[in-house]
């Protein structure tokens, strides 16, 4: 069966520090991968998605970047965090066919102080 791992669960970082959140998927090949951010009491905002190794699409301009160095690994990064980067970050995967459900990781609660 497929599983998705996302870590860390919580993170408190000072303004200006770097960020690296990692997500890995097991039990499937060539998944579509996604990074979402959820502000308190809000819906999910898609930040990045990837349909293959090294292929990254950004949905919104921001202080973040994403990379996919391996088929089932997706990394969210920042060189210098801003207060506005605080939020709940979720990694997700889906099969490549259109119209299938997404499977989410447990999320990372990031607080920038």
């Amino acid at each position, binding site marked *: 069966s497929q599983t998705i791992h996302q870590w860390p669960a919580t993170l408190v970082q000072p303004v200006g520090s770097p960020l690296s959140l990692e997500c890995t998927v097991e039990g499937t090949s060539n998944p579509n991968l*996604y990074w979402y951010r959820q502000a308190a009491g809000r*819906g999910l905002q898609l930040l990045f998605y990837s*349909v293959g190794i090294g292929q990254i699409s950004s949905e919104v301009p921001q202080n973040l970047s994403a990379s996919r160095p391996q088929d089932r690994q997706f990394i969210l990064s920042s060189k210098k965090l801003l207060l506005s980067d605080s939020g709940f970050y*979720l990694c997700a995967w889906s099969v490549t066919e*259109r*119209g299938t459900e997404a499977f989410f990781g447990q999320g990372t*609660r990031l607080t920038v102080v």
Partner: protein
Amino acid sequence: SQKIEQNSEALNIQEGKTATLTCNYTNYSPAYLQWYRQDPGRGPVFLLLIRENEKEKRKERLKVTFDTTLKQSLFHITASQPADSATYLCARGGSSNTGKLIFGQGTTLQVKP
């Protein structure tokens, strides 16, 4: 742009009653709509998917409808239980074959014993 709108006000109902949540979309009808459940501090979990050529889909105590005339989907939980208390998210697919999802802000359901 494509949008998904859900009632941001919390829905409070008594145990045993039917909960009905609303999801409205703008612009053209999506090929499908999805519903997810999200518990506090956790990632969303997929519940149901309904395609635009399907009027209704059921799964145990859950029922979803898709009305392309009203541009609306309704999500019903019959015989609701306190364990059904959570935030429910509606999502539409994007126009491309990437599996991207556009989420509503979610509706929080509170079922009181």
